[in-house]
C-alpha cells in the first residue's frame, strides 16, 4: 500500500515536471506545444551524454536543463514567434512539425538503441521504511518534483518576474500597454518550460532509460494531466499529476490489462462535470 503510494508519487513527480511546462506555455503563449514531450526525451538523451562525459550524475541536473532551455528559446524565436496571430491550429501543427524534426534528429544522433544512466552511487539501493524496502532514487524523484513545484509556485507568486508572467497570461495586450516586454516573456517562458521538461527527462532516465518514443508516451499522459487539471494552471498540473499518477499506479497494480483505460475513464468522469478541467477557467 505504502509502496504503491510512493510509486504514484514518483510518477506524479515526473508528470508534473513535464505538464507544468506544457501548462505554463499554454497560459502565456496560448500554444499547445506538441513538441514538449520531445524536449523531455532530449533531456534524457543529453543526460546520458553528460553523465558519459563527466562521469557524474549531478552535472546533468544542471547542464541539461540549461541546454534544453536555450534550445527552446532559439526554437521559439525562430519559428513560433511569427505565427501568434494565426488561429491556434497553426501553432499546434507547427509544434507537431518541430516534434518530428527533433525526434528524427535524436534518432540520427543516438541511433535506435536505448541508453541507460546509472543513478549516483549514494542514491542507489534501497531505503528501509518500516517493513518496506524502497529504491532510494525514486524517493529522490518525489523530492525533486516537490521542490520544483514549490519553486515554480513561489516564483510565479512572489517575484516581480512572476507577476509580469501572470499579467501576460491574463491579458497580454494590456500587459504590453503597461510596458511588459511580451515577446521576451514568451521566449523566456517557452525556454523555461523546455528546461523543466529536460530536467524531467534527466530525472526519468535512470528509471526508464532514454529511448525513442518516450516523448510521445509522456506527452499523451501530460495532455491528460492538463486536461484534468485545467490548462494554464500550475495548481491544476499538480492535482492532475497526482490523479494520473495514482490512476496509472493502482490501475497497473489491480487491473494490469486495462490501466490505460482507467486513466481515461477518470478523465472522462471529471470532464463531464468540468469540461475545462479542475482548476481551469471556461474559455
Amino acid at each position, binding site marked *: 500500500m505504502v509502496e504503491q503510494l510512493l510509486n504514484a508519487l514518483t510518477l506524479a513527480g515526473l508528470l508534473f515536471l513535464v505538464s507544468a511546462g506544457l501548462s505554463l506555455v*499554454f497560459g502565456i503563449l496560448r500554444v*499547445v506545444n506538441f513538441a514538449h514531450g520531445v524536449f523531455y526525451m532530449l533531456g534524457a538523451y543529453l543526460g546520458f551524454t553528460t553523465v558519459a562525459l563527466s562521469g557524474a550524475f549531478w552535472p546533468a541536473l544542471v547542464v541539461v536543463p540549461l541546454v534544453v532551455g536555450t534550445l527552446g528559446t532559439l526554437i521559439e524565436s525562430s519559428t513560433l514567434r511569427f505565427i501568434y496571430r494565426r488561429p491556434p*491550429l497553426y501553432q499546434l*501543427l*507547427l509544434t507537431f512539425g518541430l516534434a518530428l524534426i527533433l525526434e528524427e534528429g535524436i534518432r540520427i544522433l543516438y541511433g535506435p538503441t536505448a541508453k541507460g544512466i546509472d543513478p549516483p552511487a549514494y542514491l542507489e539501493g534501497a531505503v528501509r521504511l518500516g517493513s518496506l524496502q524502497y529504491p532510494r532514487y525514486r524517493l529522490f524523484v518525489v523530492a525533486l518534483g516537490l521542490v520544483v513545484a514549490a519553486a515554480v509556485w513561489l516564483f510565479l507568486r512572489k517575484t516581480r518576474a512572476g507577476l509580469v508572467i501572470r499579467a501576460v497570461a491574463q491579458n497580454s495586450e494590456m500587459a504590453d500597454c503597461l510596458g511588459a516586454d511580451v515577446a521576451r516573456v514568451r521566449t523566456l517562458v517557452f525556454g523555461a518550460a523546455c528546461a523543466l521538461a529536460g530536467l524531467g527527462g534527466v530525472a526519468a532516465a535512470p528509471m526508464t532509460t532514454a529511448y525513442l518514443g518516450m516523448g510521445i508516451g509522456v506527452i499523451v499522459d501530460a*495532455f491528460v494531466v492538463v*486536461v484534468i487539471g485545467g490548462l494554464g494552471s500550475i495548481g491544476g498540473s499538480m492535482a492532475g499529476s497526482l490523479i494520473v499518477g495514482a490512476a496509472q499506479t493502482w490501475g497497473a497494480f489491480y487491473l494490469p490489462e486495462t490501466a490505460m483505460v482507467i486513466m481515461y475513464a477518470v478523465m472522462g468522469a471529471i*470532464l463531464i462535470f468540468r469540461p*475545462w478541467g479542475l482548476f481551469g477557467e471556461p474559455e
Partner: protein
Amino acid sequence: MSPARALSAAALAALAIAPWVAARYQLSLLTDLLIYGLFALSLDLIMGYTGMVSFGHAAYFGLGAYASALVLIHFAPPVPVALLAGALLAGAVALPIGWFSTRATGIYFAMLTLAFAQLLYTVAYKWRDLTGGSDGIAGVPKTDLFWGGPSLASPRAFYFLVAACVVLSLVLCRAVVRSPFGRALQAIRENERRFTSLGRDPRPFKLAVFVIAAVFAGLAGALFAPFRGFASPEVMFWVFSGQGLMMVLMGGLGTLVGPILGAMVFILIQEVLSSYTEHWMIFTGAVFVLMVIFLPGGLVGTARRLRARA
C-alpha cells in the same frame, strides 16, 4: 466551361485512363494515394469547415480497417459489404466519443480526441484474440464486387473501386459543405459565440460532422485493409492522425480537393525521400514547418490566392 470544371474533367479523365498508362507499381501507389486522400478529405470536414482540430482521426481509419479485415476474413462477403461494415463501425464509435469531445472546445477538443484515439489504439494492441495484437490481421482477401459478380483481385479492378469511392465521397462531401448544414458548420468555424447568440446550439452540428467525418475515414480504412491485405495497430497510432493534419494543411484547409492533393504530395515526398535516406521524417518535418509559416493556405489556397491576384 469554367477553369474549375475543366480541371475536374481533366482529373476524372486522368483517373479513368491511369490503369492503362501506369505500370503495376505506379498503379498500386496511386491506389494508396487515393485511400490516404479520402482519409484527409474526411478530416477536412471537421478541421477545415468546422474549425475543430481532431488529433485522433486515425482511430476511425483504423476501426474501418479492422472491421473490414475481420468481416472479409471470417465471412468473405463482397467487398462493398466490408466497406459498409467499416464505415458503420467508425461512425458508431465516433458517436459516443464525439458526444464527449464536443463538450470541449479548441485545444481541449484536440486533446480529448487524441486521448480517445490512444485508448482505441491500446485496445487494438491488447485485444490479441480479436485483433492479433501488434501483429495485426494479415491475409485479408480481395473478394468480389457483389455475390457472383466480378472479382476485385486484380490491381486494376481494385483501383477502380477505390477511385469510384473517392470520387463519390468527394461529391457527397461537397454536397454536405454546400448544404444549409454545411453553411452552419462554417458559421460555427467563423464565430461560435455569434452562432450561439443567434439562437442555435452548435453541439448537434459538431457532433453530426464529427460522425460524418468518421464514417468517411472508416470507409478509407475499410478500403485500406483489403488493398494492403492487412490491418495493424499502426494505422490507429497518433502519428497517422498527425500526418492526416499535415496532409490537410499542405493541400489547403477547407477546400476538400486540397487535402486529397495534399495527401498525394505528402506520400510522394515520403516515397521519394525514403529512397535516399531512412531519416526522411526530418525533411518532411522541415518542409511542413516552412509551409505552416509561409504558406498557411496550402497548395490549393495559395494557388487560388495567386489566381485572384493575377
